[in-house]
């Protein structure tokens, strides 16, 4: 088969997008579901329910089970998603800012804090930080943070057996202000950097991927929206796992290997899609698996915030008149991080659709 033929397939397929009619139908269903939910909330008493349901914990775990099976398998894969067009749309942001003179701020900060409140923290809203991205563990290159995995991924760099966590989230870096020509973003910390990936490529795409790790990059003010559409930019940190995290990692890795053996014996030709863990005592139970994943997630995300708290994020703006101004921000875990995370973990048993809580704050500091 000629490579050009598959290039044709790739090229033609790349131009195909999700049709608007599908998107509209889905969103219509979402709205109807929410209207139904609102109506139900208003009229239905818990005492009138007649449908028998399993215990919420069991339901939540059952829903998560088949997914967790795969999640562990993918734990070595690099993060790969982006949430485009996540610009803060609140008109209140601009309303609270100066309307004339050279001025700028990070929109994610201004959305909650407004202007002129140096050294005061704002919670870094989930929509601005945390909604896209994720964490993974595996063997990473200590110098670059790139994943050690076999295969065709551009991240393939070998395997030295050291277990690192890698965490990356899409921080909405939108800058707002007056008379701005360009914005330079910088991050200064050990094991922390921005990753930038051309969103038109997948992370495992066989074409050369325009993937960069950067401590700093510059965007023209008027091109922020276009940049968001085209590029995935994450705030990435990588660090070695220690103590309890290593213990959990060891257990999860062993479970994954056992699970793979079960898959291979049950579904040599791909016929089975999931394994009921309750029928395989050699595997962790669904609850054990979720509990360990949650605990590891809490340790890793807390550590991520601690590392960011020592890594100032700096915005340097060049105004139309050629002058420049710099502001620094510090991202850190919220004070009640453990409680929020625990609440989320508990909620996710009952509601598999539970979204991540706001786990970090942002504070403008002296540049």
């Amino acid at each position, binding site marked *: 088969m000629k490579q050009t033929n598959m290039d044709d397939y790739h090229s033609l397929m790349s131009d195909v997008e999700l049709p608007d009619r599908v998107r509209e139908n889905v969103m219509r269903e979402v*709205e109807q579901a929410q209207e139904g939910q609102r109506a139900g909330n208003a009229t239905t008493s818990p005492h009138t329910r007649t449908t028998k349901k399993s215990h919420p914990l069991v339901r939540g775990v059952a*829903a998560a089970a088949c*997914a967790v099976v795969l999640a562990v398998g993918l734990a070595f894969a690099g993060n790969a*998603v982006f*949430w485009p067009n996540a610009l803060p749309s609140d008109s209140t942001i601009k309303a609270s800012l100066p309307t004339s003179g050279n001025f700028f701020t990070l929109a994610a900060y201004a959305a909650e804090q407004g202007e002129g409140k140096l050294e005061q923290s704002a919670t870094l809203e989930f929509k601005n930080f945390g909604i896209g991205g994720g964490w993974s563990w595996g063997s990473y290159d200590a110098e670059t943070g790139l994943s050690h995995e076999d295969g065709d991924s551009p991240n393939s760099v070998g395997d030295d057996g050291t277990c690192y966590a890698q965490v990356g989230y899409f921080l909405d870096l939108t800058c707002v202000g007056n008379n701005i020509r360009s914005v330079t973003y910088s991050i200064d910390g050990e094991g922390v950097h921005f990753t930038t990936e051309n969103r038109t490529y997948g992370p495992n795409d066989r074409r050369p991927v325009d993937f960069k790790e950067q401590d700093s990059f510059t965007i023209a003010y008027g091109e922020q929206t276009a940049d968001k559409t085209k590029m995935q930019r994450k705030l990435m940190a990588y660090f070695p796992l220690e103590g309890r995290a290593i213990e959990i990692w060891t257990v999860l890795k062993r479970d994954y290997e056992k699970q793979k053996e079960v898959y291979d014996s049950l579904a040599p*030709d791909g016929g089975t899609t999931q394994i009921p863990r309750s029928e395989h005592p050699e595997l962790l139970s669904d609850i054990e698996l979720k509990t360990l994943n949650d605990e590891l997630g809490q340790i890793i995300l807390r550590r991520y915030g601690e590392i960011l708290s020592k890594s100032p994020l700096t915005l340097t703006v060049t105004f139309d008149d050629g002058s420049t101004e710099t502001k620094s921000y510090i991202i850190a875990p919220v004070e009640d991080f453990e409680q929020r995370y625990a609440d989320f973990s508990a909620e996710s048993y009952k509601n598999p659709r539970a979204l991540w809580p706001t786990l970090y704050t942002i504070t403008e500091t002296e540049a």
Partner: protein
Amino acid sequence: MRANARATTFIERAMDSWGAMVYRLALNQTRSPQDADDVAQDVFLKLLNNPPVFRDDEHLKAWLIRVTVNRCKELRRSAWKRRVDATDTASPELANIEAPLQELVASDVWEAVSRLPKQLRLVVHLYYFEGYPVDEIARLTRCNPSTVRTRLHRARKKLKLDLEQEAKRETDEYGRLPLADERR
């Protein structure tokens, strides 16, 4: 209400990020734009109504791939499946679809890929388009890596033959075209 807004945001952004991937995979498996519409819609509604807890975005992506493939299987099994000739660009349904999609389904390579058995089509798509390595495809499709490699090998062989025959047929037809002198 806040949870509802978040659910809406979650679905919108999932469609922004992975909508095209789901749709293309559905297209690869069903070979019908109309069925791909239905599958993509069902997949995102399932994401709305009954999603697992996603630890990260790779997890979400893998989930979407598996649900899409399973939904396509269900569609094939269902008795009411519409029978639409996906390559009939003159049909009213296809005439109304987006130009890139029309171009795809009218191409030789699409026709050749469409003639592959569904399991071979799937590995071709995941390997050549999504760029997954063999081991990842094995995990996603619950196969042994050796099975994936075999399917890829068979797919390459069949595609090569198909596309070569297509090229030869075009050449033959071109060779048979009457010359202007002969028409006179």
